[in-house]
Structure formats: structure tokens, C-alpha cells
């Protein structure tokens, strides 16, 4: 709780900026995908939507029904390739006052660059595990949940369980970029020890993640569970608006989670253990 409180209290725009760039890319994607009625929108957003979701992505209102799926893909893509540099860069800036290391300039960028490999590997591992879980979940737990709780409550419970498990997987790899930006970090120290630290601190880390991420879960639930209902009862464009809110909120939450985890790691580092 102390690390969460500190993360909130010590929020700095300068530290958050790398996370904002990912958010900006997500918002640009949502804007383009919501502008398919214009030529430039169809050229850019339409092209991406067609690659990610097929022909349904360039028709109205089906483009909004498949938008959560496309958004999720774009988010994974951005986290994997851009996030593997930008998240460590943000962590370098967050950790600078703790370790009295430079927050800007070539040394800071160099540390973020060196963290790219372990971070992208951990992000890819996270993605593979979550996709594997998504493939297995409907065959087992989803059926069991619906057996005793059918209909919408069952859908909601099943979706929540899946989200919590995904967050648990994410929590185990959260320490990899945190360790990867250490000045003397190695791949083994960042990746293997990072996952080991993630597993050993799973309880408190998952608590932090859930404590901070629940508002996005609340917003994402209707978008992912009942996109058709939103399209029919409200407006298809509502899905894009909700996803934009999720992107903005998620970006801040990601910053706060990494900030809190970095502080937890820093507190643990005060016992002699580093490379």
C-alpha cells in the first residue's frame, strides 16, 4: 500500500511521458479506425482494420463490433514493440531519484535500449501465456462457471476470472523491465530473476495491479462482453469512446503499476542482492 500511495504522490509528467506516447498511438489508431467514412481514414485506419479483423472491419456498424478485438491487437503490438523500449525508459526516469542515476541523456536512453531484449521477451512470453489461457479457458473453467451460473452473470464471472488470471500472468513478468533497467543488469538477472521475483511477490503485486486496474476492467467488461448490445441500444461510436477512455485510463494505471512495482523492487533491493 505504501508503494501505491507513493506512486500516486510522486507522479511526474516527465516520468509518465513514455507511457503517454503509447497512449497517443492507441488514440490515433482509434481515431483513424473511427474515421472510415473519409478517404484518409479508410486508407489508414481501414487498412489496419482489414489486416486485423478482415472485411467486417471496413463496414458500418460491424467495424465498431470488431473494434475491441482490433484495439486489443494494436495494444499488444504497441506494448510488444514500442513498449519494450518506452516502458523501460519510463522506469529509468521513475528509478532515477531512488538509485541516483541520470534520468535523461544518452546514459538513460542507453539503459532503456539495453532493457529492450529482456522486456520484449517477457512481453512475448506474457502474450503467449495469455493467448494460451484464452484458448484453454473456454474448454474448462468457462463451461464449469456457466454450468452453475448461466446467462449474463455467468459471462461476467467467467470474463472476470479470465481477466484476473491474465493480470496474474502479467504480474509475474512485471519485474523483468524493472530489473532490466538496472545499470549493471544482464539478461539472466533481468529475465530469469525478474520472473522469479514476480512469482515470489505474486500476492502483493497482483493486489497492486487489481487495486489500480479495476476501473479499466469495469469499462472493458461491456465493450468486450456485449459489443452488439452497445451498438444496438446506444450508438456504435460509443465503443470507440469507451475504448479511448480505457486507453487514457490504462496508460495512467500502467504508469502507476510500474511506479509502485519499481518502488517495491527498490525496497527489496535495500537488502544486498543485486548483480
Amino acid at each position, binding site marked *: 500500500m505504501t508503494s501505491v500511495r507513493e506512486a500516486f504522490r510522486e507522479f511526474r509528467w516527465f516520468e509518465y511521458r513514455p507511457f503517454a506516447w503509447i497512449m497517443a498511438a492507441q488514440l490515433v489508431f482509434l481515431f483513424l479506425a473511427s474515421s472510415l467514412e473519409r478517404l484518409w481514414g479508410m486508407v489508414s485506419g481501414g487498412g489496419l482494420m482489414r489486416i486485423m479483423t478482415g472485411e467486417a472491419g*471496413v463496414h*458500418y456498424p460491424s467495424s465498431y463490433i470488431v473494434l475491441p478485438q482490433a484495439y486489443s491487437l494494436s495494444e499488444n503490438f504497441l506494448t510488444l514493440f514500442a513498449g519494450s523500449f518506452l516502458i523501460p525508459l519510463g522506469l529509468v526516469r521513475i528509478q532515477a531519484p531512488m538509485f541516483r542515476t541520470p534520468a535523461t541523456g544518452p546514459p538513460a536512453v542507453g539503459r532503456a535500449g539495453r532493457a529492450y531484449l529482456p522486456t520484449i521477451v517477457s512481453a512475448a512470453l506474457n502474450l503467449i501465456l495469455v493467448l494460451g489461457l484464452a484458448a484453454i479457458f473456454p474448454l474448462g473453467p468457462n463451461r464449469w462457471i456457466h454450468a452453475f451460473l448461466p446467462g449474463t452473470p455467468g459471462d461476467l464471472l467467467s470474463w472476470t476470472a479470465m481477466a484476473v488470471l491474465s493480470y496474474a500472468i502479467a504480474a509475474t513478468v512485471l519485474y523483468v523491465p524493472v530489473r532490466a533497467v538496472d545499470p549493471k543488469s544482464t539478461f539472466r538477472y533481468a529475465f530469469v530473476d525478474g520472473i522469479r521475483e514476480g512469482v515470489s511477490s505474486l500476492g502483493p503485486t497482483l493486489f497492486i495491479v487489481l487495486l489500480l486496474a479495476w476501473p479499466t476492467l469495469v469499462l472493458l467488461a461491456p465493450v468486450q462482453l456485449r459489443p452488439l448490445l452497445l451498438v444496438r441500444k446506444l450508438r456504435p461510436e460509443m465503443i470507440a469512446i469507451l475504448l479511448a477512455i480505457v486507453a487514457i485510463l490504462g496508460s495512467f494505471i500502467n504508469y502507476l503499476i510500474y511506479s509502485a512495482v519499481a518502488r517495491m523492487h527498490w525496497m527489496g533491493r535495500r537488502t544486498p542482492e543485486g548483480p
Partner: protein
Amino acid sequence: MRRSISILLAGTLVFVVGCSDLGGMATRYRVERMFWQAQREEARLRLDKARPDSTTLLKIHDAYARLRATFRPPFVKGTGDTSTRLRAEIARQVGMAELTSARFALQARRPDVAQEQAKWVASVAEADTGLHREADFMLVSTLQAQRKPDEAIAVMYGMLDRYRPIPPSGYGSEDRILSVPDGIIAIREAMGDSAGVRRERARVIAYYRGVLGSSPPPLLQAQVGGRLARMLIEAGRPAEAFAEVAALRRLASATPALGMLQPDLIYTEARIREMVGDEQAALELFDLVLMTYPDSRYASNSLLDSGALLERKGNRKEALDRYRAIYDRPNVDPDAGSIAAFRAAMVNDQMGKWVEAKQILERIPIQYPRSRAAVEAPFAIAEHYIRAREGEATKAALLRAVDAYRGMIAQDTASVYATACRWNIVRAYAGLQRWNDALTAIDQMAILDRGLPVTAQALVEGARISYALGNRARSDAYLRRLTLEYPGTPVAEAARQILKSREAESGGKRNAPK
């Protein structure tokens, strides 16, 4: 450097060519969005309005008509395959919106507007046969609403010539084009043109034989064969109908997928047996349908036909049980249900149970407002009192009948039964000796039901009533209208003779010495 410029130019060209299709896709997206918005507008305007008024209907009409006003043909420029496909997709979307708009114009009693819209859709449909067909169906509806039955029938025959029936995916589905022949006959029946009905039946039989002659796939063959057999029965040609059923039976035994055809075949054979006078065999076959396929749509028809057969044989009680079994069903077929209820009322009346009969007759216009039985029921009550010589009850029944008919017309002014309702109003006022009201109703028919044989009959009635009331000028006006609007009909010839004799009579009076 030159190579770089060439690559850049080629890239730009590819981009521009690509963008032209993407421009079409963006247009298609805008069309889809506007169509969706129109649907949303419709849902919003319909909210809490079970029967929207004309203003609401025209607002919905305008929402759908916006697509045609915004997107002009040819919708997408370019000549490539993608451009052609996009153009067809946009034309279909705009065309469907325009036809939806036309449907609302029709409901708002603007068939002229709907007709223009249907013709426009046909003009943009190009090679899209599906859209063309929909436009033609709408055109037929608009012509019917404008009381132009002959033009409607001409369009329907044009459709039969142009569109070959599409083989169905399963026995449950059927191409709408196969219902067109029945529609043609229904129009002639509604006109009261029995000679026309016979003529159309012969033409329709030839059409069905033509389709069967083109060796269609088994499912389509079965559907057309079934329709042909029924049409032959209605045309009073049992031997040919029987041959058709035998051919269908051979087809069904050779095609396992046609097992669903069995109730249809048994029912048709039962009707043929009945027609040739083998009533016992017919009853057994009707019962076989009821026992073997109780949920099929032929079960209701079997109950109805066997009920009528038993009624003819004098077995009223069993006939009544069968009629009741139809209209007491949870999901009653309105066609069979309305006839069964009417027949049940008649049987009850014959059995001396007038109270039950009257209750059933009074319920029919409420339960089945769009049926022939609903038109007949109010008058059947009055006729009972006429037969019973109960003057006051007859008057009250006739007044109630007028109210019922007015209610039915108000519910659906474009109904095929609206003419019959108006004619029954004339008959009711004549029965009540309210001559001026009867003449007003005849004047309405002359305008709203112009061209129909029953209207000619109404004009004769108008001429007769006016003459009896001493209003010879009005009587002559009716007769003149008959000669002008119904030339070539026997009543027009008679009217011409009467007018001639009256003129001679008045001329003689003028020349006569005082």
C-alpha cells in the same frame, strides 16, 4: 536519380489507383452508416406507437429517402472489378433503403410516391437481379394500392418471364417468385372476376409446366409440382392433378431429402379423391395427415377440408369438432382459422345453436380482420335475422355490420378486402333503406374502387336507387359513368340502352304538343 523518380511515380500511381477503390469503400461506409441511422430513426419514431400515424410514417420514409438524395448514381467512379463490385454493393444498399422508404410511403397512403421510388430502384439495379425483383414486388404493391389490378398482373407476368425461380436451400424455404402466380389469382378473385380467375389459372398452369419442363433440381421440382397439383385441383382437373401427384411420389421416393414432401402429397391426393367423389378414401387420407404429421401446415388444411366434407355428408357434429380443433390451436393459421370459425358458426346456426353461432361470428372480424370470413361474418348475422323475420334485430345487425366494416377499412385502407367492405356497407344501407347513405357509399366506391367489376354492380345499384327516389339526373350520371368506365361489359351495354330510351322518352316529351 531517374530510377528513384520512376519508383516514386509508380508508387504514387499505385497509391492513387488504390485510393480510388478505397474512396469507394469510404462511400460504401457512409451509405451503410446513413442506412443504419435511418433504421435507428425508425426505431425511435416507432417507440410507443403500435400503429404510427401518417406523419410518423412519412418521417420514417424521409429518413430512408435521404440515402438516394445524398448518393447519386453511379455512386463510385472507375471501371475495375473492385469498382464494379463496390458500385453494385452501394446500389443495393441505397436501393434497399429506397424500397423501405417506398414501403412507408405506401403505408402512409402515398402509392404514387412509392411507385416512383420502385421505378427508380429498378433503374439503378443494373445486373442485380435480386434488387430488381424487390423493386418489381414493390411496384406490384403500389399498383394494387392504386387499384390498377390489370397493370399489377401485367408486371407480375413480366416477373415470371424475367426471373427463373431460385432452387431452395431446404424444403422449408421457397423463392418468393413462386408465390406470384397465387398473387395473380388472388387479385382476380378479389375483383370478383371469375372468368379472369379461370383464365389466369390456365396461364399459371402453363407457367408451372414450363418451369418443370426446364428440368429444375429435385427440391424446386417438388415445390413447383406441389403448386401445380393444387392449381389443377382448383381448376377442376383432377386427372391431371393425380398424374402430377404420382410424379411427385416417384420423385420423393427417389430423393431422400424430399421426405418432408409426404404430408403435402397425402393431402393433395385426399383432395383429388374428394373431387372425384371417393369421399371415404379422402377422409381416410385427411386423417392420415392428421395422425402422421400433426404439426405440419397440412394438418390444419386437412381438418378444414375433412370438416367441410363431413358437413356436406350431414355429419354436423363431427364437422364442428374438426372446425373447433383448427381455431382452438395455439398457433392457428389465420387463413384456415378464419374459414373454420365461419363454418363452425354456420353449422351451429344450422343445429339451432344461434347464441354460439353469433358469438363466433362476432369474434371473427376481431380475430381475423384481414380475411374473407371477416367480411362475410357481420352480414351473416344480419342474414340470420332476415331469415327469422326479426325486423328490429335485422336493423340492429345491419347497423353493427356498417360499424364493423368501417373499422376494418380504417385498420387497413389498402387491404384487398376494403372493396368488399365498402360494397357490404352499400348493401347494409340498402337493407336499412337509408338511401342517401347508400348513394354516398356508392360514390365512394366509384372513386376508390374504380375499374373493379363490383363497382360496376354498385353503379347499377346507384342508378336503380336514384331512379326509385325520383332523381333521374343522378341515375343517368351513374349510367353514363358505367358506359364510360366499364365499356364492353354487359352492364355497360344495358346502361347504354336505358340511357338511349330515356333520351328518346324525354325528346318525345319535348316535341309533344302541349
